[in-house]
């Protein structure tokens, strides 16, 4: 309070002209305030009590000493006695504002500052953030196993067959060249897929047989033998032959094979360069 006395003496020495200036200053200061004269309202939400140094506090005291009592009262009503006293005596409450409240354990209630106004727009229903997962790289999808994958999605095969039939029907009806080409492309793709699937099936069958036999022999004591690529091809060929025999298309297959080989050999003949 001694400091306050000091400034009061100071202002006593000030000449009348200076008083006029500071008087107008204070009027300007209150110009804004007088528009919002509701006592006790924080017009600008979240009036920050800035950390005032003693110099600022002194200037504030000087200004206040020139204001009329009514104006001071109005100011106190507007900002509240707590912030008024803090501003006057220059304490830093800014440090308190940035204080982070940490609770002792997670079962305690959350503690937060009571001086920050909450956001105007309030989330009434808690909106959940959508988490995007890529099943290819996500651990939740598990490891990829071809056999399990095929088994679980085997229900698609009849659907694919149906779609192919539908496309063929469409092709018969379609007259437009462009669209015909597209449909033909699609049909060709589907046929290719079926073909590769058939070949894979044959390969699998052959290898399965061989593995089953090997297992039996290993159990009986023979050393395990691992197939070479060429051995695999031989097995596959044998299996294919078996299948062809079942369906009765051996001759046709052999004819095609001979033609292909002939064409290949012809390529390797010497040419007149």
């Amino acid at each position, binding site marked *: 309070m001694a400091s306050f006395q000091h400034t009061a003496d100071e202002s006593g020495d000030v000449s009348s002209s200076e008083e006029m200036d500071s008087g107008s200053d204070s009027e300007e200061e209150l110009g804004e305030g007088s528009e919002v004269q509701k*006592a*006790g309202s924080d017009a600008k939400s979240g009036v920050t009590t800035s950390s005032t140094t003693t110099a600022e506090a002194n200037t504030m005291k000087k200004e206040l000493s020139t204001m009329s009592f009514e104006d001071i009262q109005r100011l106190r009503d507007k900002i509240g*006695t707590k912030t008024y006293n803090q501003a006057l005596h220059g304490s*830093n409450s800014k440090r*308190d504002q940035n204080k982070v409240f940490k609770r002792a354990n997670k079962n305690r209630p959350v*503690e937060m500052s009571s001086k*920050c106004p909450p956001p105007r727009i309030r989330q009434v229903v808690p909106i959940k953030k959508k988490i995007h997962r890529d099943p290819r790289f996500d651990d939740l999808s598990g490891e990829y196993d071809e056999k399990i994958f095929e088994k679980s999605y085997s229900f698609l095969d009849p659907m694919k067959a149906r779609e192919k039939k539908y496309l063929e029907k469409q092709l018969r009806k379609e007259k437009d060249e462009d669209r015909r080409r597209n449909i033909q492309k699609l049909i060709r793709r589907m046929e290719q897929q079926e073909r590769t699937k058939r070949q894979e099936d044959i390969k699998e069958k052959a290898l399965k047989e061989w593995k089953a036999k090997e297992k039996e022999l290993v159990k009986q004591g023979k050393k395990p033998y691992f197939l070479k690529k060429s051995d695999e091809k031989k097995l596959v060929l044998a299996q294919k032959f078996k299948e062809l025999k079942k369906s009765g298309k051996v001759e046709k297959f052999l004819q095609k094979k001979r033609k292909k080989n002939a064409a290949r050999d012809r390529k390797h003949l010497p040419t007149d360069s």
Partner: protein
Amino acid sequence: MSFFIRNSAKAKISSTKVGQKRKTPGKPGGKKTTNGRLAGKRRMKGGNEEIASDEEILSDVEDVPEEEASEDEEETAQEKRLRLTKQYLAQLEEEEAEKRVTDEIDRDAISHRLQEDLLEQKGKLQRKVAAQYIPPTPADIQVLRGHQLPLTCLVVSSDSKHVYTGAKDCSIIKWNIAEGKKEKVVAGGRKGTEDKHQGHTAHVLCLAISSDNKFLASGCRNKIIHIWDPVSLTRLHTFTGHRDAVAGLAFRKGTHTLFSGSHDKTVKVWSLDEMAYVETLFGHEDSIMALDSLARERAVTAGGRDRTVRVWKIPEESQLVFHGENRGSIDCVAFINEQHIVSGDDNGNVCVWGLMKKKPLVSVRGAHHAEGSEQQECWVSAVAALTNSDLIASGSSDGHIRLWQCGDSFKTVQPLFSVPVVGFVNGLKFSSDGNFLVAAVGQEHRLGRWWRLKPARNSLVIIRLRKTS
């Protein structure tokens, strides 16, 4: 065994790290760290004589700027508590000295009182009185009529002689309990006569009376708070500043500090010694429905649709947030003792909270059920608690005021008995000695007219509670 050794080794290592900043340990509730602060101060002042070690310097570095700034100008919350405690001790000693003839002051008496006060502060003082009460007979229930429209709020004076009620007809009535009739009426005015009329011109939503019976405060839908002299019911002052209806008022016991909660989501603190506004507290995300306060510089508010109960710590400028369940609105709240709160929401649940836990300690679901085929749950519109005891009461529109007994350290709640009351119970208060319970009953809910119960009467109900002894 090895587990213990490992832990102690860890503790040893962490304590002897040189050069690491030691932060002041955070204690629950942030109390009683005065020792740490004062010790730091002493070290600073006596620094000339002894050379402080690295650890001490570094541990003080954090504290220094705060100490220097706050030393002369303002006392922190801890220093304020210390000063108040010293004052209180001096006061106690005086009182005890007066009582005793000899010069020796009885230390035991003081220590006993201090112990009781400590228990009260900690919230552990729980007078087990609930079991002594017996259900009231119809002769114990007194119905006093006087308001034209539904009553919304009520307060009991600290000497338990008068009850003040406010109603939707904008009037405030002072009742004498012993005689059972009206003493004074502050009539409500018509809308538009705010300048001339002495009373309220909009629904009176809340009332509060100071513990020394010096001030009565009333808040209404017109965003104003009137301060009255309780004896003569003359208006002393009016506080403006809220931006929406004032829905909750409470005085801090033993002081003239008034807390007000409003539908504009703010809590304002007013000082009636200076008749001035002190500060505003922000945090609620929806209208505040109710407010209560005990002797500590704290207030508890019920947040309505934001489903939270918040305890405001005024000197620390912080709030504790307690979240209720995901649906519904918390409509009423009351302090049982300094550490426990009871709240009621519109799903018919009555919850007891402890300040140390973020979830309710007990939750009585479906406390009030409507009788009849609908089986709809009634909104709990009022709760009350006998301070520092284990008796709580809840009121709703289902035709009963239910009294409950809280178990040991508020871990359970048992129903005691119920008092038949027809209508919406918009206010409930116990007298300070626990001899009677007053209820403000109306045909409509205090905040709106969703229902109107025709068979109900707008009245003040005084229920005399008798004990077995």
